[in-house]
């Protein structure tokens, strides 16, 4: 992939050179890490909760067919309509045809990664339907024609004065705003309230769907979710097939794990639960769209399957040294960060996503914070093998690794190699320490100084001084 214009090494380069972006990211991720650390430390049984969370996710996935059927019948029993979508385009068509049936040209939306994955807003707009994002950050992204860069805080890359300027150009035309976040939040409140009161159809994602009762759960902070889930006459919720929990008590486990991992709060301000249609309270029509979009293929991979445990908390982004420097856009996917590095290559067949398993130092911080214990480094290494096995490796790289493997797998060959290198010291010493090595290994010296070679190797020194 050397010299390629797609892929993480290319897309991250300009970002890591942007010192403003790096400063924004550093302060944001540091702040959220500290908050998470504090509220997690409060829970003496946090590790038990993580184990329970993992166990529930594993149980659901290993019996997913039964749980899907059970969820369907529970939702229908309480008055909901269930639709199945094999892929994103079918899910888009379902949503659009429901909107058209009601003769509407506008919908209000609750922030949802699944609909971002589908490209729903773009699809609807091509068909003459305007989807209004109502989460503050999603609204900012939509108004700026930008892309989200964080799962939880999509506009993490924008600072307050940029947002003030954007609002003055768009939703608050003709008024003068300060860049105080409270003033900006007020501006969005005023703009969106009319939308909420007049909207006939809302589209949401699903955080959890309870198979036993057909109850759907959406967690949020601002109240825009409650507005969308309560006021319009028609509600359409879209979920990936993996978003199921068996029972309400299982749901309670995730209500403990998710907010502490995600925003570093003991609980998010608002959590809405509904079961189908409730007469006299909320929408009169409820549609649940259950979408596969290659998740069943992820399920078939015994190592990759745990990726579907993810509850989209974004804790892994905030601890990742790579994400902290590159930001979310460098991943060129709806799902950035460590979880994106394992989810994107499995869900999307794009060339750029194939580079993502390398967008990691394998430090393991993501695994440590994951509330459902996804072994992200394990999956990363597994996906690296898979990508390489598909032939995405240059001949010279394969050759160099073959030599390396031969040298490192035998003591005698290793000794011999060290001896050869020590004989070549005079050559290497001529290199300035800041210089770069030739060829493919030159990439290594691009960002590192060449260490000085010692007079004798450790093994020689050991034999001389202690060995005998």
């Amino acid at each position: 992939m050397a010299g390629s214009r797609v892929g993480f090494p290319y897309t991250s380069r300009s970002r890591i050179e942007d010192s403003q972006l790096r400063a924004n990211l550093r302060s944001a991720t540091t702040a959220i890490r500290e908050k998470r650390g504090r509220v997690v430390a409060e829970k003496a049984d946090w590790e038990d909760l993580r184990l329970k969370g993992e166990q529930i996710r594993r149980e659901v996935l290993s019996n997913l067919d039964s749980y899907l059927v059970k969820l369907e019948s529970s939702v229908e029993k309480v008055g909901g309509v269930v639709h199945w979508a094999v892929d994103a385009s079918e899910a888009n068509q379902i949503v659009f045809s429901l909107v058209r049936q009601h003769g509407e040209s506008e919908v209000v939306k609750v922030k949802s990664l699944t609909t971002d994955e589908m490209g729903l807003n773009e699809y609807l707009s091509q068909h003459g339907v305007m989807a209004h994002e109502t989460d503050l950050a999603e609204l900012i992204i939509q108004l700026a024609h930008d892309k989200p860069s964080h799962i939880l805080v999509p506009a993490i890359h924008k600072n307050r004065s940029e947002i003030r300027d954007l609002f003055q150009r768009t939703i608050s035309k003709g008024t003068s705003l300060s860049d105080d976040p409270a003033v900006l939040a007020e501006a969005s409140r005023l703009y969106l309230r009319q939308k909420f009161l007049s909207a006939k159809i809302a589209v949401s994602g699903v955080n959890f769907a309870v198979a036993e009762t057909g109850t759907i759960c959406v967690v949020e902070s601002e109240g825009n979710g409650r507005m969308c889930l309560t006021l319009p006459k028609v509600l359409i919720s879209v979920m990936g097939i993996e978003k199921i929990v068996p029972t309400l008590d299982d749901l309670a486990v995730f209500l403990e794990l998710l907010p502490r991992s995600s925003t570093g709060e003991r609980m998010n301000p608002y959590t809405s639960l509904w079961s189908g249609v409730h007469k006299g309270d909320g929408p009169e029509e409820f549609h649940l769209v259950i979408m596969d979009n290659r998740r069943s293929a992820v399920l078939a991979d015994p190592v990759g399957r745990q990726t579907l445990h993810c509850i989209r908390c974004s804790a892994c982004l905030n601890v990742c040294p790579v994400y902290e420097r590159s930001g979310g856009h460098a991943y060129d996917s709806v799902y950035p960060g460590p979880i994106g590095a394992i989810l994107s290559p499995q869900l999307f067949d794009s060339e750029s996503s194939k580079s993502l398993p390398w967008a990691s130092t394998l430090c393991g911080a993501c695994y440590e914070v994951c509330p459902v214990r996804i072994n992200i480094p394990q999956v990363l290494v597994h996906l690296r093998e898979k990508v390489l096995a598909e032939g995405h490796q240059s001949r010279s790289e394969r050759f160099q690794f073959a030599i390396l493997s031969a040298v490192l797998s035998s003591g005698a060959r290793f000794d011999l190699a060290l001896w050869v290198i020590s004989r070549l010291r005079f050559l290497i010493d001529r290199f300035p320490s800041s210089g770069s090595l030739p060829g493919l290994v030159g990439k290594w010296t691009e960002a590192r100084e060449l260490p000085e070679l010692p007079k004798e190797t450790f093994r020689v020194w050991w034999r001389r001084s202690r060995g005998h």
Partner: protein
Amino acid sequence: MATDHISGDQPSRTKILSLVRSGLFNKSMDPGSSTAGVATRGAPGTPVRIDSHELETVDLFEEVLRDYKARVLRVDVEGLPDAVAEVVSSCGIKSLVVPNGLDLSWYEGVGQVELVVDDGSGPAVGFEKIDGVITGCSCAIAETGTLVLSGKPDEGRRVITLLPDFHICIVKTEAIIRRVSELFSRVGVSNPVTLISGPSATSDIELKRVEGVHGPRNLIVVIVR
């Protein structure tokens, strides 16, 4: 659950279920396959510690709520009407909605206020013009400072606690549970359930927390002994 019921005869349904089943063929790495839930109800677990000391449930509830910038009052039953009246007047609330199941004696002291008693039957319009709402709650969770509304007669339908800017919620001490795992032994889901933990908030701009976006920007919790 070997037989599926035929639902709307959707070809995509058949396809997804068969893809999932073939994906599950590789079961080698997964343990047993019970269809029961994993979590146990009401497991007490280890209580949360804040600042490394254990708090009584009610004190913990109050402390966590204050952390969310909610206003908290503690009164006994006799003091409740006065406390509610004081909150309504000090907040400058001119119009109020209450669900029709709310105990009249709780809010009889509010004085010169335009009052709407909602029985949930009319169309859900006009509530955005009302300043405040008073409700009870089904239960409250101390560890997370959470109020649980589930459409009971003294809680009303969802819209009345959503559009007004002030939410006054009355919590009886016996309704306060310790942690989230006990929640569903207290509350069912036949009605919509809303968990409220502090006033509406956002941290979307530079991660700076702003209280109050779309939901009520002011949350006042009155704990009644």
